[in-house]
């Protein structure tokens, strides 16, 4: 999510007057408060309180249609939603629909995995909704406190001149150039603090099949047949092992090696059969490069 998407959530929140407690939701209906909800949970709570319902599955089933109607209306109004925000609403709408469809009456035994998943989805939704409700109430209290406190003004007057004069002379070590550099750094638009957690570390570094084929080829060309075990003995990761296996398949197709295996699950021995001078691992097909590296 780039910074360009971000302001929309604020815009939605700020367009209307901040709504007070949901429990005191105005009778006017949710149409007039279209833009006042600060998120899907807020909307859901708003709808539940509008119908004076408890937060139960009945409530969820009852308001599902309204929730979805709300999203449609926003679309019709041409509300320019940030993608990630819309998706939050949609995820919840989808969950609501699921719950409604299932009628959620676990009257008998829970029968299959799907039912269990649905129950979990319902419980999770309730839990999140209740937690959000608690924070919303707390936010209301905090808002009142902040407002009360804003009525007190702290004394923060500038130091009287004769005390200011006592202050030790500042140590100043910056040349204009250094100061300029400092300014450049301070004025540079912040790379708006990483918007997402890097996933790079979750992927193993790329392993090239060609490279591994080169290694295998070099070893086999020395003459002696080698067992597959020997060929992968120095592989540091599973990925390297897989790459070497794929390389062997490739090389077999190129008819530069031959396999020998006395019986099922017995040791696999690999022997060089190719022309030493002509074969080069770079001639291998590209087939595996893409899939292994990405």
């Amino acid at each position, binding site marked *: 999510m780039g910074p360009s998407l971000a302001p929309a959530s604020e815009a939605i929140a700020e367009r209307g007057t901040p709504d007070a407690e949901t429990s005191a939701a105005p009778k006017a209906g949710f149409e007039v408060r279209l833009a006042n909800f*600060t998120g899907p949970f807020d909307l859901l709570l708003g709808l539940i309180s509008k119908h004076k319902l408890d937060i139960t599955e009945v409530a969820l089933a009852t308001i599902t249609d309204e929730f979805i109607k709300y999203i449609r209306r926003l679309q019709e109004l041409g509300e320019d939603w940030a993608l990630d925000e819309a998706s939050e609403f949609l995820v919840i709408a989808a969950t609501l629909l699921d719950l409604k469809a299932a009628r959620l009456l676990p009257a008998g035994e829970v029968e299959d995995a799907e039912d269990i998943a649905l129950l979990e989805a319902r419980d999770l939704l309730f839990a999140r909704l209740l937690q959000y409700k608690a924070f919303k109430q707390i936010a209301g209290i905090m808002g009142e406190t902040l407002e009360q406190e804003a009525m007190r003004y702290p004394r923060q007057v500038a130091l009287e001149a004769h005390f200011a004069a006592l202050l030790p002379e500042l140590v100043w070590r910056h040349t204009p150039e250094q100061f300029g550099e400092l300014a450049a750094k301070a004025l540079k638009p912040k790379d708006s603090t990483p918007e997402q957690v890097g996933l790079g570390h979750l992927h193993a570094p790329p392993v090239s099949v060609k490279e591994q084929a080169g290694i295998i080829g070099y070893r086999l060309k020395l003459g002696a047949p080698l067992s597959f075990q020997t060929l992968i003995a120095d592989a540091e990761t599973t990925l390297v092992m897989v790459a070497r296996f794929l390389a062997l398949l490739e090389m077999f197709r190129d008819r530069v090696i031959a396999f020998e295996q006395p019986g099922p699950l017995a040791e696999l021995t690999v022997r060089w059969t190719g022309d030493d001078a002509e074969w080069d691992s770079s001639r291998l097909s590209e087939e595996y490069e893409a899939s292994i590296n990405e």
Partner: protein
Amino acid sequence: MSEEEAVQDGLAELEALPGGARAALEAVLMVIDQPATSEELAAGLNVTVAVVEDLLEDLQREYSGYTVKAPDVDAVGFAVASTAPRGFELRNVAGGWRIYSRSDFADIVGRFVLEGQTTRLTQAALETLAVIAYRQPVSRARVSAIRGVNVDSVVRTLTQRGLIEDSGTDPESGAVLYRTTSYFLERMGIGSVAELPQLSPHLPGLEGIDEYYDASRM
């Protein structure tokens, strides 16, 4: 001279001044521009923390309009009787003491002090601030999961307002963690986040919700 004696001396010295130690403390309170702890005040006045804290409470009561007669300072010959509250109050906020105008005069004072007053926070900002206050240190992703919406821009606004700040990164995910600032405590008029209203009464039977969340969302 032992340290104790030195501090005694410090008090004696102050009491010799017109108005005594109380007035000296008041004089210092006049020049601080952010809350000062009783330790800082004690060090500045060269008296013990206990003495300063007595004096602070004494002043606090007096400003609020109670009749005060401080026994310690009686010795140097003055008595204070005040029945009307002053226009200002002394408060212990965000871990420090500071003078504030009394809230009764907010409208009048507001005509003179244009700056420093923050505009009202939006509902979105308040909710985000609440989640951060109770879950700190916390990542944006986590706050976002609780609120159900993206909170990036609201977090930026709150940071700019000085209400929250970066408190390092999560060792596991590398995500930036946020916490509330002492300015937040000041604006809330409390000494520490422990003084925030309890969340549990608003969260019936959801003690285990954190784990639930963490397992399923994060």
